[in-house]
């Protein structure tokens, strides 16, 4: 077998790790403010899972010769981040955070499912390791969406409008990279468009079963740019806040 393309793999790892880091940080902003105590704890715990997943991927990048995980997480320029726009938005109302959680984690579970068979075995191992965590995350998200979609007119209207707001942002998860062909040919990852297809087929019945109508994909302009380092206005303030303590003394031992 040919040598795997390291640049292609690194690009894929940064996308995934940056999404998890930023969304994990965002979701942790609900800690102490969740709608009820039990949900506050559950959502915070899942935010922590996200940070743990990003650590595993940053560690893998470090093994490939990049800087150490803390430096990658806390000491990179905004333009070097490869996260999609969906994860950058402020937490908004709980209906927005839940919808983002539903759309993102369903795509992540499918992505990890694909990666479990990746030819890049360290990544396949990580993908298998987090399968259980993601199973709970998607079960949590699916249950909440069904709950709010079916509760009353107010909750249904709120969650439907969140869906419509989030949808173009969520399509940005699948922004193609310059390495799609290489990754697919080398058996590392089947590709973003393949994943998007699976994801649409996966969420459609879940949304319909929750009494929600899925926006029309063909008339929806995906929010691209994040994967190329072009971000929304929300990322910079988040990075500043996230790295505030770290930047006081980057060499400090924790």
């Amino acid at each position, binding site marked *: 077998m040919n040598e795997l393309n390291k640049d292609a793999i690194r690009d894929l790892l940064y996308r995934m790790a940056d999404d998890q880091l930023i969304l994990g940080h965002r979701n942790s902003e609900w800690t102490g403010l969740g709608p009820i105590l039990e949900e506050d704890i*559950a959502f915070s715990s899942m935010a922590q899972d996200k940070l743990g997943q990003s650590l595993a991927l940053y560690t893998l990048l470090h093994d490939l010769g990049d800087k150490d995980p803390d430096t990658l997480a806390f000491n990179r320029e905004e333009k070097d981040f490869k996260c999609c726009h969906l994860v950058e938005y402020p937490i908004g109302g709980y209906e927005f955070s839940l919808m983002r959680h539903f759309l993102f984690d369903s795509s992540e579970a499918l992505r990890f499912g694909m990666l479990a068979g990746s030819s890049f075995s360290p990544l396949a191992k990580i993908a298998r390791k987090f399968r259980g965590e993601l199973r709970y995350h998607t079960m949590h998200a699916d249950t909440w969406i069904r709950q709010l979609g079916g509760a009353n007119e107010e909750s249904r209207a709120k969650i439907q409008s969140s869906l419509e707001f989030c949808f173009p942002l969520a399509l940005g998860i699948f922004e193609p990279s310059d390495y799609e062909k290489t990754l697919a040919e080398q058996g590392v990852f089947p590709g973003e468009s393949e994943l998007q297809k699976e994801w649409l087929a996966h969420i459609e019945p879940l949304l319909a079963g929750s009494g929600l109508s899925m926006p029309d994909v063909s008339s929806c302009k995906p929010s691209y740019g994040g994967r190329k380092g072009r971000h929304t206005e929300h990322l910079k303030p988040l990075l500043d806040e996230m790295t505030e303590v770290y930047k006081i003394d980057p060499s400090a031992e924790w």
Partner: protein
Amino acid sequence: MSLKSLDPRITREGLPETHDASPLGEIHHWGTYEVFHQTKKGDRHIHVGSVHAPNPEMAYILAKEQFARRAPCVSLWVVKTTDVYQTNYRDEDMYENNPEKMYREAGGYKVMERINKYKKDHPQNK
């Protein structure tokens, strides 16, 4: 004017600023579910606490993070608290044991003396 607070949960309720007590609807007051935790297959499910939830599905996903986040777990049961029937504490004297019925308890049998005597008399069977 509705009540504004630093806590968004209060603000969100749109409560009047006056002190009139108004009844909260069911949506504000979820019932509770009792949670039972099983450590490994075949073991008993053991009661570990309760969660607030509007239905069993929600109870299950909330219970998972409260009670099965760290300890090993293979299965959870959730049961609506109001579906649990219980005896009343005013009847608790019915559980008291009569001290004259020691023979009903394992500790009521004094056998060690007899065992030791047997061992002494039959050293070859030790």
